[in-house]
């Protein structure tokens, strides 16, 4: 009987230790909301002095980048909000917006906004669980749950803001240099109110993390 007692005591302890030890050994990312996955990337031209520019022209429609042959299913619900937020940030940086170029000459900068979506498909593996207390098994012994693989699919949206230096136009190449780019990546599928909030917040962040901008 002593052997039996020792066996079960040790087994019970083994079970507790096992359960503690495997307690989410492969933790999840800790990112719970769609907004947690937002990424804001900016790139600038180190040879440009952004304080020398005074005026800019904001292209008043947003380009939807859609692969050739595919239908444009991207909503235009947020287009105006995006344009307004970009304009607000440029104003906050003391750049003057030119809305009508007739008779006033070329502005210093042009800003063009585009959006695109990407569908991602893949497989995710969810790890299993070993041990644990399981009714019907001898104390301390549990089933081996091998984990499972599930298909995953999600769609991301990107807002791209390009700032072009119109004064540096290269006529022979017909190229206007892009001197600043912001890319805002995030998961789609959020509520409308959250999307509105995230767009404003992330556009603001793209300007905030670019301290070289402004007059």
């Amino acid at each position, binding site marked *: 009987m002593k052997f039996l007692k020792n066996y079960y*005591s040790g087994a019970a302890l083994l079970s507790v*230790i096992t359960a503690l030890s495997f307690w989410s050994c492969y*933790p999840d990312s800790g990112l719970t909301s769609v907004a947690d996955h937002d990424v804001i*990337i900016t790139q600038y031209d180190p040879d440009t002095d952004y304080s020398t520019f005074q005026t800019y022209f904001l292209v008043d429609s947003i380009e939807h980048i859609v692969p050739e042959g595919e239908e444009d299913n991207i909503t235009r619900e947020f287009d105006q909000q995006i344009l307004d937020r970009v304009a607000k940030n440029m104003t906050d940086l003391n750049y003057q917006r030119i809305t009508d170029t007739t008779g006033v000459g070329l502005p210093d900068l042009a800003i063009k906004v585009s959006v695109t979506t990407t569908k991602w498909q893949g497989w995710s593996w969810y790890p299993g669980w070993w041990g644990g207390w399981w009714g019907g098994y001898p104390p301390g012994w549990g089933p081996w749950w091998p984990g499972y693989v599930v298909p995953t699919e999600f769609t991301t949206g990107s807002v791209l803001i390009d700032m072009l230096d119109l004064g540096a136009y290269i006529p022979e190449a017909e190229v206007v240099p892009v001197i600043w780019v912001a890319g805002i990546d995030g998961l789609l599928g959020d509520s409308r109110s959250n999307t509105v909030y995230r767009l404003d917040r992330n556009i603001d962040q793209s300007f905030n993390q670019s301290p070289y901008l402004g007059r």
Partner: protein
Amino acid sequence: MKYITIILLIIMSSVAVQAQSSFFGMTYDVSIPTGETEKLISGVQWRGMGLEGRWYTGKNTSLGFAWDWNVFQETVLTTVDFENITVTGNQVRNINAFPFLMTATYYFKGGSVVQPYVGLGGGVYFVKKRLNIGIYSLDEDTWQWGLAPEVGFLFPMDLGFNILLKLRYNYAFDAGKGDELSYFGINVGFASIELF
């Protein structure tokens, strides 16, 4: 890996001849990052486990092996500059460290309540790093040589096993990428005598 296999075989053959008794230990591991590791992931890490076996080679000594799984993770919202590129997002920094160690242990004279010991482990650490930024992931797996000195205490229980408490410093050497790994482990569990 070839050298590790040879060392393992030598030790195991030695043990087979000299073994007087053995035990199997299992621990719940708490880790505290230090040094370069702490710069990446800070704070107490509550996820981990360890298994070990020891064979007594003398009255006060044993040889054995230890395997652990220590998980480190921290999520930070941060802005990072790469030359003229700036990236802002939630970074999920994750390390899964798997030490595979050969161990040598010396036991001090203890009473009926506690048996203190000191030990040294040496072997390889399989270090699996992942950095998630938004939906993007960067993975890096490395094998790194490492050492692990430890002090521990065995508390004999009346139920045929010992409570095991050990404090281990893990140090995995730089694998050439400035990626040394170091952390203190506070491991508590039990050791079942004569399981082998």
